[in-house]
């Protein structure tokens, strides 16, 4: 059987469309990615996602695991759905710590020997020439060997990956290093992926951001993400607010966006809120629509906390409501990213966008998306524009 020709694009996709788009298809090959955090996070999930995303796309990956035996890792990987398992090769640095024999082709027998660690990983990279390399994790080395030796090893791993044309991801939580050492590590990287996990209301909230070290490179805002079985890591906005004056079409916007939508209404007018769960282009969002009438303003106070962004719906035929729209925006907080949906643009008398911007006194560059919510026109586009603003890739 002839070897299958696998086309390797020169970019390593993350499988997160909004990020890949910004990265012009993915991370360049070769490149060095530092997965960094100061506190415990779920960055390993993202690393696993990145490895498996490669495998799903026909690439090969080398996973160096200091914390987990490969058989356990393989079992945990099944959460991501099916993928060709043989595309991921392990460097087993765990079995020897558990004093059990390794059944992997590449294994480190003495984790107290930095030179052996490096030699085994280098050999694996040289022989397999993987498209992606994950080192999980560098703090294992940082906690055991002298800084100079660790930095030298760090450099050797990056060089090996570069020779093989791989994207190398070095996971690192900083337990012991000071700023100077961190700067050394940063300077060896092409991209830094910073991670944060916090707990709010008993729920773990994960965020990450990507910065390219090259001058003028990419720098995103904090991107909220979550993990979904079989799908892997997805961008996740826990709270998008849809607001606007009475009868502008907010509920219709929520319903059009959502796979499932719930409205608490009375004779067609929302009296509590609309809620919908949205999945568009690898982005998941919980969308909350507020009532438009003034007597329900107290609801804003409940929802205005921890809002990721706002879709401000206005009726393009009713300039007399624009003042009210501005007021509602002010209620949720002026600093939030927002997009104006000029709705009902199919009706006679709908104002052009420039006119709406002028009459509303919108800041220069505020996006206005023309929509016909009843037909679903423009609504998803508006959400995507908002998503790009929130994560800072627009």
């Amino acid at each position, binding site marked *: 059987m002839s070897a299958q020709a696998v086309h390797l694009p020169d970019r390593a996709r993350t499988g997160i469309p909004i990020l890949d788009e910004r990265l012009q298809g993915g991370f360049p090959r070769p490149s060095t990615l530092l997965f960094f*955090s100061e*506190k*415990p*996070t*779920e960055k*390993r999930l993202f690393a696993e996602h990145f490895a498996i995303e490669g495998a799903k796309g026909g690439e090969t990956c080398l996973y160096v695991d*200091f*914390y*987990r*035996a490969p058989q*356990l890792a393989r*079992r945990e990987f099944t959460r991501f759905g099916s993928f060709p398992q043989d595309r991921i090769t392990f460097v087993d640095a*765990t079995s020897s*710590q*558990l*004093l*059990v024999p390794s059944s992997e082709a590449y294994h480190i027998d003495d984790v107290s020997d930095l030179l052996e660690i490096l030699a085994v990983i280098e050999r694996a990279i040289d022989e397999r020439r993987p498209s992606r390399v994950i080192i999980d*994790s560098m*703090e*294992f080395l940082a*906690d*055991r060997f002298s800084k100079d030796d660790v930095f030298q090893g760090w450099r050797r791993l990056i060089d090996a990956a570069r020779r093989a044309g791989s994207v190398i991801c070095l996971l690192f*939580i900083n*337990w*012991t290093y000071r700023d100077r050492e961190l700067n050394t590590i940063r300077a060896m990287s092409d991209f830094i992926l910073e991670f944060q*996990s*916090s*707990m*709010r*209301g*008993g*729920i*773990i909230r994960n965020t990450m951001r990507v910065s390219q070290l090259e001058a003028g490179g990419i720098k995103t805002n904090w991107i909220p993400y979550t993990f979904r079985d079989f799908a892997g890591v997805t961008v996740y906005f826990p709270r998008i607010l849809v607001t606007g004056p009475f009868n502008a079409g907010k509920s219709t916007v929520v319903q059009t966006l959502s796979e499932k939508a719930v409205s608490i209404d009375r004779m067609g007018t929302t009296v509590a809120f609309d809620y919908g769960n949205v999945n568009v282009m690898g982005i998941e969002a919980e969308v909350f629509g507020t009532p438009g009438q003034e007597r329900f303003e107290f609801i804003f106070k409940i929802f205005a906390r921890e809002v990721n962004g706002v879709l401000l719906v206005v009726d393009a035929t009713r300039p007399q409501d624009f003042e009210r729209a501005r007021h509602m925006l002010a209620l949720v907080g002026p600093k939030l990213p927002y997009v104006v949906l000029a709705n009902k643009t199919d009706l006679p008398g709908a104002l052009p966008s420039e006119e709406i911007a002028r009459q509303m006194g919108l800041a220069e560059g505020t996006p206005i998306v023309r929509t016909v919510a009843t037909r679903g026109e423009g609504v998803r586009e508006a959400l995507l524009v908002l998503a790009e603003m929130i994560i800072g890739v627009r």
Partner: protein
Amino acid sequence: MQEKLPQNYSVLLTGPPGVGKFEYVIAQAREALRQGERVVFVTLDLRPDEIRTRTKALRLDLSAYEGKSFVFVDCYSATAAERLEPIPGKKTILVSSFSNLEGIGMAMSKAAQELGTPVRIFFYTISTLFLHNSTQAIAKFFQIVTSRAKTNMGYILYAVQDGVHEGMTMNLLRSLVDGVIEMRFTDAMEREVRIHHMRGMHVDPSWSPFRQMPGEGGLE
């Protein structure tokens, strides 16, 4: 001495091996569960199954609570190269290695999320971490986890072996918590316990004999 446990609070329980720290921890857990609170047990030294058996002897039947208001964070089994098949109805959160401090920290958050906050977390024992990680790394881990547990999860108690760590290390751990409970053997090998201090509370720091809680059996 078993009063209502404080919320948003961290405690260090120190004592030499064999003095009864496990029994003390289980007594607190039992009381919390009985009052309808939720409990996370982080085990580094014992298999969950062994804990289930031993707690039964201490009149705490975990099967009544597991999966509902009690969950294990199991840092032991993977490290002992045990079989890791999940047991139906007994959800445990697995950490693959003692060295993976980040994994332990997130597993605790996961467990709290699973049960719903607030929770009471029992960490048995912090001493084991020192076999696998540098003191510096553990200190930062300890400080972060304690503050996370206090602010977002509720209450955390760490058990630590006395007499196996350097004085500096013990002092560091003691300085990072709100309260310290000490246990010791007397010359006659009687067991004693005292509350050394509890921030914000008036406590009597005198030693008193450590007996099993009322109605307790199965201890020799």
